[in-house]
């Protein structure tokens, strides 16, 4: 059974490009969500092995989504890699203090992201 990766990002192009990259890099099942709410639902339903979570999203941003994931017993153990366009040191510092697996700053190299995903999943 292929490992599942959930991509939560409100930007369609980013989501799509990332999905293509991961699909051609590994044997992973890629699930996407365009908002935090949608991501929470899919995380609970699909139980992905890894969640790539965009930070800055409308309505429910990535931090709030992460908090909800952590608060839910069925999702709390899913490793999360934050993908963020907020790259100021203070922001990054605050992100790293979370119980996230990694924080990757946009614009990232898709293959580096894939390598990192592979590491997590392995």
């Amino acid at each position, binding site marked *: 059974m292929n490992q599942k990766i959930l991509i939560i990002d*409100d*930007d369609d192009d980013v989501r799509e490009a990332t999905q293509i*990259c991961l699909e051609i890099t590994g044997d992973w099942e890629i699930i996407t969500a365009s908002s935090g709410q949608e991501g929470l639902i899919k995380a609970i339903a699909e139980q992905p092995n890894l969640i790539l979570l965009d930070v800055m999203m409308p309505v429910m941003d990535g931090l709030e989504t992460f908090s909800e994931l952590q608060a839910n017993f069925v999702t709390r153990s899913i490793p999360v890699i934050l993908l963020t*366009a907020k790259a100021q040191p203070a*922001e990054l510092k605050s992100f790293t203090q979370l119980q996230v697996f990694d924080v990757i700053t946009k*614009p990232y*190299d898709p*293959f580096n992201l894939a390598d990192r995903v592979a590491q997590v999943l392995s």
Partner: protein
Amino acid sequence: MNNEQLDFEQPDVPSVNCQTPNSLEMLLHRMTNRIRQSLELSVILAGVTDEVRAFLGTDRVKVYQFEPSSSGEVVAESLEEKKLPSLLGQHFPAEDIPLEIRQLYRTKRERTIVNVASRQIGMSSLPEDDDRDHIQFRTVDPCHAEYLTAMGVQSSLVVPIMDEDHLWGLLVSHHSSPRIVTPRELEVVQLVADQTSIAIAQSNLLESTRLQAQQEASINRVGKFLHSMTQMQLQQALKQTVLALKGSGGRVYLAPSNSESMAQLYISGEQPVLLPGEVKQKLSLTMPMEKHPDWQAWLQKTMQTDHVIQPWAIAKLDANLLPSSLDRAFRPTKIKSILTIQLEYRQKQLGYLSIFRQGIDLETIWAKRPDFNDPRNQVALQSFEIWREIKLNQAFPWTEREIELAQILGSHFAIAIYQYQLYQQVNALNTSLEQRVQERTAELERTNQELVQVISDRLKTRADLERVSHQNELILNSAGEGIYGLDLKGRITFINPAAAQILGYDVKELQNQPMQEIVNHSTAEGIVYPWSKNPIYQTIQTGKVHHVTNEIFTHKDKSSFPVEYVSTPILEKEQIVGAVVIFKDITERQIIDRMKDEFVSVVSHELRTPLTSIRSSISLLSSGRIDPQSPKSQRLIEIAQDNSNRLVRLINDILDLERIKSGKVTMLKSSCNAADVMNDAVEIVQSIADKAGIKIAVEPLSVELWIDRDRIIQTLTNLLSNAIKFSSPQTTVTLDARLQNDDTVRFQVQDCGRGIPPEHLETVFDRFQQVDASDSRDRGGTGLGLAICRSIVQQHGGQIWVESSLGKGSRFCFVLPIRDQ
């Protein structure tokens, strides 16, 4: 001479006077009237002699006046010159009338009638009351008879003239031939003598009055010069005094009135000479005679009798009265008499007034030369040849009246000198006082100037201090930062209004309060400092300056706020006496910082997001892992292109917005018709609307506006694009405009979209404040469109806002002034 009195019968000799009693009465009456017609004694006496001779019919009637020496002088005479020689003015020695006869004249008022031919002398005492005259005859003394005979007189009648009890003189009738004097004649002559006595008394009184008047006149003259207060004319007064006292000279010596003054000497007329050898030492002007020790001693001795100072009147200097040292000063002069008055007033000896008199030459005409060696001098002399006796340089004694006058004048001198000295002293005091006042005034002026300078300096210093203090106070009061001072115990010594306001207190509430307890000073994490760990305490303890940017103070209402502060030690003479703390509430700054951070974060996000897509797409395409011809490859290319375009729009909008906001883009205004602008904008977005199935309804307003045509079209295009993006297909977007108040035009873009939540109505015009960013991006927005619209409208002096209700759509409105502002 035998004075035995004998009674004789009246001799039988003819009487010259044959007048009846009535005529005698008339005669007497006339004589009395004549006597009384004048007060001048000489006139009276001349009248007496004339009338008596006319009455008696004798050859000579004379009035003989006794002198103090008992000799006498014929002072009036009526004469039959052919019969007898004149005796007027001639003197007769005292011996011619023996003393006992003079006493009889005086005491008994004895009258004598001598008939030389009969050698008889009739004596008649003055009868008392109404008794008639009784004449007792006896034999005349042969000497007497011889005396009369020598004078050519055969008959004489002598009646004494009294001045009260004093024998003044004799009324004498001489006849060159024998003649009988009747008792009646005697009675008449006696009456005439009595009247003469009265006239003499009156004349004496007159003379006395005259002298008194003269004295008073003299006193007045002298006084006039003495009592001119402002300028005592002592010299003139002295001159008048000398004249009044019939002196030849005089002087006033004024003793020094005090130890600092000098003696003064005023002289008039003849003065004592200064003897050789004494000129410089004793009797010079600097050592006046009056200061001579001999003068002083002798004068004191002789003047003071029974402790009463008497005038010193020397009638005759050659009587060896003066000490020889002084006598030498007078001897070469003609001064014969000295009258010195000690000038004293109120027991103060002021000096001396001295009057000098020369000796005078006396000429006496004697009826005969007295020959005291002739034994016949014991009897009357036979010769009546006139003899002129001349006595040179005779003393002219001071009369009591003169001495009295001198005393009075001396008193005036003393009073005047005393007053003058007082006046001088007052003047001197005044002068001294004025000088002292001037000196004191000058000193006071100097002191005043110094004081003014000191005060000026102090005022300047004070003004400087006040100015500095005021400036400091102004600075403290004007400072936006809170400033307070602490003492070593951390108590507030001063605090500015800003600090009190930031903390929520009045300044007065905070004075002397422990600051740590007031502000509840905490770390950035909110942990309250113990005072010993407080950085401000460290400043007080160590002098180290602390600059802290993120700690927390507590407001009076218990709310806390972030502060930035600097604590600096206050040094006085290199000793720390406290600390001054400058702090500010950085709540707003933190908000702004947060907004900046958020903005940067948003911009970063907005830039990084499309870049992520671009980078990812290019990386995948360039990796060779994807077939370039595959749909995925095509899609990646599209993603890269779309995001590149998005990035360009975004960058353009960011730059455009910043340029408009900063004013670097000038609105190129011109007159444009609003309808044209509206139509142009609609035309631009028409294809998008068509694609989205949206109908655009435009209601152009034809009005001329002064606007930047392209920028207003850009605004309308942005609003129309947004309306189209958020409108459902088959709905209508309306653009219209209307005139407001004739000076503005209101544009409206209305859609029937989902509307904007109320909490976003205010922020929707801010940058990247889309209600839904991803929604916006999906529709090709950058999140800056409305911000750009607002900037353009504001640059035209207009306003822009949105009215919206959820589910019903939104209406974006903006107004522009018609004319340029």
